[in-house]
């Protein structure tokens, strides 16, 4: 093995004199007090190597031995990933001893002593390529495919495959031969370098199918697509994390990867304690069953923040290759960018805007491009949907991370301080936010059949209604309540109704927190019908009173289970209010 010795330490930047050839991004191990501390090579100049340490460097002495591993940062892929809680380098946190994370402690990501029931999916003699399914094991309730290792290039012939039965992950499941007659033994485990995308599929197509998140302002107004990308920027406290966790809890995804990147430990604790108790609305199993958490909170090694998002993405791609619908959430991508900045500054590189590294936009673009809906070699479909939060400095969206992300993410969920201050949650700004999928013809076509004919047109009409409402509000506040036609008040209050009954949603209420597409379709049509109605009021004060009553009833409907007796009762009240609201008002239905 190639070795070297430590010649300098500045915080977590380590300088090494190497004794042989070193590869950029190679992992090296620094010997320190009977431990081996992991670091990644980030610069090579002749025999001078700079490496970023994934630990604190307080114990490292000058002259310490360094082993270069010859491998990039890799993850272990195999059954047992689901329900795990990993740190940013895929160490299983649950297996760690002690209350505190000791420096240099590593734990295996998979369980080598657990038996999985294997069912072969292939016969000897068949020809296979990287990513093809050799067999399947049950992981929790998911059919976890054992695949031809992604690193293999070209065609292979299956020599043998074990018969149905219980096996350990390191047992040989199949034997393959290459065209050059090399024999390959395939176990349930394979490794993959995290910074490279897993490309074992035929094609990636444009996203076109709605991914139900249960949140009205997303599904109805700014839909996310299977295999799509989105980002949630917002000042602190505007609800990025709550929104992302709501998406996590309610989305119709087969597998969920949550990357807690450089944020609060208590927020992951929340997931740890809640997810095992929550039922996945889609399958009735616990949410924990389909979830993997990657946790590199703000007090954990800064250098591992970057690793954590790549580890998450690689795991997502792995499950996509099994034909599953994967949702990956990262909170917050800004912390990853900041980690890049800290290191770049320490290396005294020439900085880009706001002292971020110049390659930041490319790094972000490259990462988002790993999401997508793909057709596998066998024709099956799998998808990786990615939603990241962004934490802009000073809450100002004109900063490098937000701007770079805006160029690559297709959905924009802008959280507004003003809405959060007024407790209008989720504080998604209805005007600024968008989903580019609404403009995809294949998406329009898909919703025409899956939701209702003309759905997207209705959504756009609703956005106009909101926009008109805000313009009316501006006029009212400039000119005064009684200086504008009463009609302005109606236009404004219609948009308030959409705000209160559609956009606002109580993420802490058991019923309101999650709406099926069916329920959303029903309520949306109801609201848009009211939006179409013409009302005649004589005085502006009547308008507010009337709509506040409507809003109150609509909110009660939102709090009631769909189609329950309670729901129907409020629906009757609504119809009544619309039909006979005093003598002064005429409704035309």
């Amino acid at each position, binding site marked *: 093995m190639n070795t070297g010795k430590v010649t300098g330490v500045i915080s977590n930047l380590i300088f090494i004199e190497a004794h042989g050839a070193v590869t950029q991004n190679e992992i090296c191990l620094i010997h320190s007090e009977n431990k081996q501390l992991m670091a990644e090579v980030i610069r090579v100049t002749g025999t001078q190597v700079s490496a970023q340490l994934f630990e604190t460097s307080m114990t490292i*002495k000058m002259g310490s031995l360094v082993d270069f591993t010859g491998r990039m940062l890799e993850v272990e892929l195999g059954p047992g990933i689901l329900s795990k809680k990993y740190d940013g380098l895929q160490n299983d946190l649950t297996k760690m001893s002690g209350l*505190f994370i000791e420096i240099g402690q590593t734990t295996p990501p998979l369980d080598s002593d657990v038996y999985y029931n294997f069912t072969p999916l292939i016969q000897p003699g068949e020809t296979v390529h990287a990513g093809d399914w050799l067999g399947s094991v049950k992981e929790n309730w998911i059919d976890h495919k054992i695949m031809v290792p992604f690193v293999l290039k070209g065609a292979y012939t299956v020599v043998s495959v074990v018969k149905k039965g219980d096996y350990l992950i390191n047992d040989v499941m199949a034997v393959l031969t290459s065209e050059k007659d090399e024999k390959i033994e395939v176990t349930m485990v394979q490794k993959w370098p995290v910074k490279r995308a897993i490309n074992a599929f035929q094609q990636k197509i444009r996203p076109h199918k709605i991914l139900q998140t249960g949140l009205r302002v997303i599904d109805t107004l700014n839909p996310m697509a299977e295999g799509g990308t989105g980002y949630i920027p917002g000042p602190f406290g505007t609800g990025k994390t709550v929104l992302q966790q709501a998406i996590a809890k309610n989305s119709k995804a087969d597998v969920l990867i949550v990357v807690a990147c450089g944020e609060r430990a208590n927020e992951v604790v929340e997931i740890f304690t809640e997810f095992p108790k929550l039922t996945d609305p889609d399958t009735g199993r616990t949410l924990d069953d389909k979830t993997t958490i990657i946790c590199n909170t703000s007090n954990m090694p800064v250098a591992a923040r970057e690793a954590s998002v790549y580890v998450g993405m690689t795991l997502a791609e792995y499950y996509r290759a099994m034909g599953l619908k994967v949702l990956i959430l990262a909170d917050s991508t800004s912390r990853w960018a900041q980690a890049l900045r800290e290191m770049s500054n320490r290396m005294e590189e020439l900085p880009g805007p706001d002292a971020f590294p110049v390659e930041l936009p490319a790094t972000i673009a490259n990462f988002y491009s790993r999401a997508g809906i793909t057709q596998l070699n066998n024709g099956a479909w799998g998808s990786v949907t990615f939603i990241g939060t962004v934490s802009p400095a000073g809450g100002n969206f004109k900063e490098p991370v937000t701007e770079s992300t805006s160029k690559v993410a297709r959905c924009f969920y802008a959280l507004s301080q003003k809405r959060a201050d007024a407790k209008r949650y989720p504080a998604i700004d209805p005007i600024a936010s968008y989903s580019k999928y609404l403009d995809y013809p294949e998406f329009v076509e898909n919703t025409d059949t899956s939701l209702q004919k003309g759905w997207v047109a209705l959504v756009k009409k609703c956005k106009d209604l909101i926009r008109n409402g805000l313009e009316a509000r501006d006029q009212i506040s400039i000119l005064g309540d009684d200086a504008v036609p009463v009609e302005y008040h109606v236009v404004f209050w219609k948009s308030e109704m959409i705000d209160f009954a559609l956009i606002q949603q109580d993420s802490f209420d058991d019923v309101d927190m999650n709406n099926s597409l069916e329920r959303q379709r029903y309520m949306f049509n109801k609201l848009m019908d009211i939006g179409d109605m013409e009302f005649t009021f004589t005085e502006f004060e009547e308008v507010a009173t009337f709509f506040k009553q409507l809003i109150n009833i609509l909110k009660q409907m939102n709090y009631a289970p769909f189609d329950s007796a309670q729901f129907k009762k409020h629906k009757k009240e609504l119809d009544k209010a619309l039909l006979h609201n005093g003598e002064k008002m005429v409704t035309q239905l």
Partner: protein
Amino acid sequence: MGFKRIYTKISNITKATCTLKAEGARFGELAKVNGMPAQVISVMGEDVTLQVFSGTEGISSHSDVIFTGSPPILKVSDLLAGRFLNGYGEPIDGGPELRGETRAIKGNAVNPVKRSKPSTLLATGIAGIDLNNTLVTGQKIPFFADPDQPYNQVLAEVAMRAEADKIILGGMGLSNDDYLFFKNTFSKAGVLNKIVCFINTSENPPLERLLIPDMACTAAEYFANDQKQKVLVLLTDMTLYADALAIVANKMDQIPSKDSMPGSLYSDLASIYEKSVQFAHGGSITIIAVTTLNEGDITHAIPDNTGYITEGQLFLKQDADIGKVIIDPFRSLSRLKQNVIGKKTREDHPQVMNALVRLYADAMDAKTKKENGFDLNEYDKRCLAFAKDYSRKLLAVDVNIPIDQMLDTGWQLLQTYFKKFEVGIKENIMDHYWDDEKTVNA
């Protein structure tokens, strides 16, 4: 370490650092230069650079440099209780030297899977906190306050009312007056035996402040984990701490990011605040800090990064209408309140709290309308009257009542100023708490 390594040849001296050739030094190690504490900030081969906390004035190229062989440490034991110490963990109260186990400050992170969800209510009697921004043990939260707000008084008040086994004060750049104020408050309340103070006053070198939060947290970890106690850590003023970070970064020629702050500000602050924790064995560390603002500007890098790290913030504001300091219900937030409100407190808590704040927002709109010279309608006028009453009875920091009484007061305000459909509260809660007979605006 059996022997001390002494060197007497310094090759380079800057305002805050000095460099010398030395063997075996490690990053982060503490040393003394001419008897003055210093810390290793870079090792490049044999060249070791030290940051001298008090500045390099008086250091010559022949000054003694002694390496201690370890990073900064604190001696932890029950003997810490009642003591006043400086940034190096040395007594400033004239008392005996500390004894106990030697611990490096800035200890390892708690494994997140070993943390418990913080969900024990920490009541203060202040409705602006308990009702609107309920705190729990294991939380970290700062007061955001302009320099002219009585933030240290409020901080001391909260500390005295909150239930805690130990109170650990980390004072950074504290004025001598405020230092004495804390000391008097603790001694008057008869709690000197349950406090530990780490003090850096404005008379001490600013860089020494950098050690204060880690010292305070190391003491806190001892009591919270080793002794399984409920520990409350008070850190004031974290803005002055961050300013000291900026001085160091600047002297080391680092490229500053926003507001001349080092690019690592977020990580630096997070490593302190994340020491707050709820352990499964019942011990906990709660951090209540002060971040002073410049003219209420929360977009400045210090409050901004703080807000991204802490579990909310408590915003102090002068309410001219009632002539008192209030906790601003809009910009304040407790992110952990949902762990207790309506669960450990009465079921109507979340709904009442939200309704009051929403209506207060309507009042602020009405106020703007009035200031812009428009006529107020009947609803606007009711809102304004409500706002004043709400501010006086619930938002002012001098309120001291139990939570149930805060909720009752809330209902009474709603019933006094609003109609049933205007409050937007869930039906089952309304049915239970809204008393039709008491309604003023039927």
